[in-house]
Structures are given as C-alpha cells and as structure tokens.
C-alpha cells in the first residue's frame, strides 16, 4: 500500500510548481541552480507537494499549531559575557581574512 501510493503520485504530480516558481524560491534560498537542477527540482518538488496535499483531508480549523514540544519555555539568565575572546580561533576557519577581519567582496559601490 505504501509503495503503490507513491508511484501513483509521480504520475499525477505535473505542474504543482512552475519553473518560474522554482527560480523564485532558489533566489530566496540563495542558491544558484543550473537549468538541469531547476528541471529536476520542479519534478521532485511537484511530487512531494502532491504527496503533502493529503494534509488537506484533515479539518484543522479548531486545532492550535504545535511549534515546540518539551517543557523548556523561555528561561532567563543574566546578561553576562561567558566566553573568552579568542579572535585567532574564530578566524582560523575564515575562507579569507585580513588582520583580525573577515575579508568579503565590496558591498557598496
């Protein structure tokens, strides 16, 4: 049953999301996709979005969303510095640096 449902979806999944939408979402997600990637993501996302449509079988108008499980709430603490400054350690992984700064391309013309 599990398998069959999925194969059915793959055939009915066309056009759930357009290539233009894929490009728009990729811009939001800061991903430069090749056109081959755009095509395969359109197919994959369409299949997945068709599958998740099953959630609409459930009436959730009176249901509160769950954003968090567990019991933590929002614990408070004193606003104190607890870490020692270690600029060399922090910069050790920098892809490019200059002195004690991270080097990036020019942002303002």
């Amino acid at each position, binding site marked *: 049953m599990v398998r069959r449902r999925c194969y059915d979806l793959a055939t009915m999944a066309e056009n759930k999301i357009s290539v233009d939408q894929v490009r728009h979402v990729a811009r939001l997600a800061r991903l430069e996709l090749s056109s081959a990637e755009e095509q395969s993501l359109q197919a994959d*996302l369409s299949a997945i979005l068709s599958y998740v449509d099953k*959630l609409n079988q459930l009436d959730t108008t009176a249901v509160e969303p769950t954003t968090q*499980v567990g019991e933590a709430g929002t614990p408070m603490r004193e606003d104190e510095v607890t870490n020692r400054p270690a600029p060399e350690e922090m910069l050790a992984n920098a892809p490019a640096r200059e002195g004690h700064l991270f080097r990036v391309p020019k942002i303002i013309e």
Partner: protein
Amino acid sequence: MELCRLTIGEARDLLARREISAVELTRACLDRIAELERRLNAFITVCAREAIAQAEVADKRLDQGGAPALCGIPLAIKDIYDTRGVRTTCASKILEKFVPPHDATSIAKLRAAGAVFVGKANMDEFAMGSSTENSAFGPTCNPYDLQRVAGGSSGGSAAAVAADECLAALGTDTGGSIREPASFCGVVGIKPTYSRVSRYGVIAYASSLDQVGPFAKTVRDGAIVLRELAGVDPLDSTCSARPVPDYERALTGDIKGMRIGVPREYFVEGMQPEVERAVRAALRQYETMGARTVEISLPHTDYAIAAYYLIATAEASANLARYDGIRYGLRVPADNNIELYNRTRDRGFGAEVKRRIMLGTFALSAGYYDAYYLKAQKVRTLIRRDFEGAFETCDIIATPTAPTTAFKIGEKTSDPLQMYLSDIFTISVNLAGLPGLSMPCGYDANGLPIGLQIVGAPFGEEAILRAADAYERSGAIARRPPAI
C-alpha cells in the same frame, strides 16, 4: 579474545580490575577500523593518534582508582558533533575543512567521563537522509551485506558499532536517524525525549525535532552512555532541568503487568512479511514474560511523513542559511556578495540538501505559509494528541522500526519520496517529542537484522529501557553478529 567485541559492561569491569588497558582496547578498535574501513566506509575521519593519547590518560586515571563511568571506552562520534581541534564536516563539502574551536556539550560530557574518541562517523549530509548515501564522502556499507545501506542518517555510527570498530557511538535523530540505522545494522539505538539531552554544538537540522542519542551493542550499554549525556545545559535553553535517573538501575528485568500498546496503523500492507512476523513474535515473548499487549490506535499516523517533511525542511531552510561562505566553510569567490552566497551554496550543498532547502523555503514563502507550514504544525498537534490518548491505556508502545530490512545501495536514490517512506514508523515519535529505541528482534531470510521499536511517554526512558533489556536478556533471539 578480541577486545573490540566487548560490550561496555564487560570492558569497564576488565579495565577497573586492570586486566586489560585502555590503550589495548583502543588499539583493538583501531586495528579493526584499519582492517574494515576500505569496505565499510563508516568513518569520515579516524583519530588514531588522538585516541591513543586519550587512552593513555584513561589508563592513568584507572590506575589511580575511582575512574569515571566511561573511562577508556572507545566511541565513534557522528560527524555532526563539534569536536575541538578535530575536523567536523557534517558529511558536506561546505564544511569539508571546518575545525571547530569548541566541543559540543555531549562531547565535553563524554570527555569528562573518560571516553576515547576513535573517529568521526559517516552520515547523510546535514543528517538529511535515510541511507547515508547522501554523504559527500561516499555511502557507508552495511556490515551484514556490503551491497546494502547501513541506514541513515547516522549510518556510520550504526555500522561502526555493528562491526566492532568501537564499543558504542553517538548519533542524532530528527525523524528516525538513530533508530532506522540501528534496525538495519542489528544494534541498539536510543532517541531520548526531546530536551532530555543538550544539542549545544550539534550542527542543527530541524531544531524542534533534533535529538541526540547513543548506539550500543546492548540495551545496558545504551543506558550507561545515555546517563552520561542527559541533563540540563545552560548553553541549550531547550534542555530540560529534570533530574537524570540512573538508567542502568532501571534494568530490573521485571516487566510483569506492563501494558504494551500495539498500534493497528503500524502493521500496514506492503510491509516485508518477515518484519511483521518477527515483531509479532517479540510481542508474544513479552506476554510470556508477564506483560500485556493492548491494541491501540494512532489515527493520524498516515499524515506524519507529510507533516514532517514540511516542518523539518522549513526549519532546515532557516538553520542552513548560515552557510554563506563568509566566516567559515567553503567559499566560491565572486565579484559581489550575493553571487558569492549563491555559488558557494550551490557548490557546497549536495542534491538532497538543496531539495530540502528549496521545499522548506517554499513552505515558508509568502502566500504558502498557511497552506503548508502552519497546516503541518496543526497536524503535528493531532499526532501529539494521538500519543497522549494512547498512553492512557498503555505504558509503552511497540512497533516495527522500519517496514523493511536494509535495502540495496542505489535502490531508492532516484525517488526521494520512496526514501522518505523508510521513516514511516519513526517520524511520529519525533513530531510528538517522545523517547524511542530500536533493538534487534530477528533476522530475515537473507540474514539481515529486523528492528523492534519501543516508544515511551515523555521522559519515559526508564520504562522503554527496562522493557528492551528484559527482552534482550530473555534470549528470545540469538544475536548473530555480522560475518565481516
């Protein structure tokens, strides 16, 4: 005797009596790694030199007496935990050269407990996958059959424990990433209650679901490691301040009168028949041991995967926004910042990570938030309530861990949805924030392990460990270590 085959329970006695040394034990594991790694690929980084140095320190502490609980015990660590001074890749090209300046809280606790770290275990990139085929460092093979997957995302940890490359290991579980590989590799894997263990320094995938836990050869070993991990952490504000029980002491063997809920929705058509047979046999064994099985219903089970893939990917899209090529990790140079971000992320992330970032970004984007993300959060409430209702009539819940035994490498890589369905029995447990474990309950006709999942009420770790240990000790199945 091959020392690497010892359990923690056996090794700690031999170490305490100084019949073996921590260095000998660590060498045995490192030798085993050297022998098997070309076939298994369970590790991204092996830390031979560091491990021997840690073992030498452990031997000194053992000589002095009063050594801590895991003194001299060799462990594998999923490569998602920050380890000070040791490369931590999350199986991604984007973190290929990242060396953390600090330890995750779990690592710091295990260090304090005297543990030895033999290496960083392979995994699906950013813990996104069910087979460890999404690793930038190649898949991990199943020790029972090298043509098959080890499960995922913590496949390297599971395989390393199964193949005796270490005595126990750490994994993480967001939708089944400890329990499914434990099932496929025939070991014990424990996902504690959400908030039971700190996630500080564990690279985040989906923060409302991620949880840390151990892999071990026996339930007792799992309980020993879990006790060291659990507990409050000022560095993780989601972490519970509840006192930590002595989980090993909960293993009394007494399960008389325990009510085991069996959800009717978890025995679906399309499941491998041998899996259902083995799980049913385990349930009968529980009855002969004095427990009672009661049929329960978790009516929203069929919606769990859909809800999960919206919630998890939405959270992932936010968590992975930090990989921008500026302060650490891969950078693909460009003339301006936006192009630098776009190219770095395109080259640095693998296909499944991009797929999930795209799905999550879409589910959170203007015009779709209510229809997808909010809807999924509401369904999450229904799934949580299913479990709350069920635990009114039972103490623990028993199910198969996965619908099949380990599948072939490459079998599901072309169809993401098929891959997602491997987690059909584990995902609800994360959505509800409950503790769950997987333990071996049989083998199929190919000799591949079958996993039994046991799920508890919130903070019900003692009950599920007691039940699992009682079954393990009953000898209902003879464990068959892999022939590798």
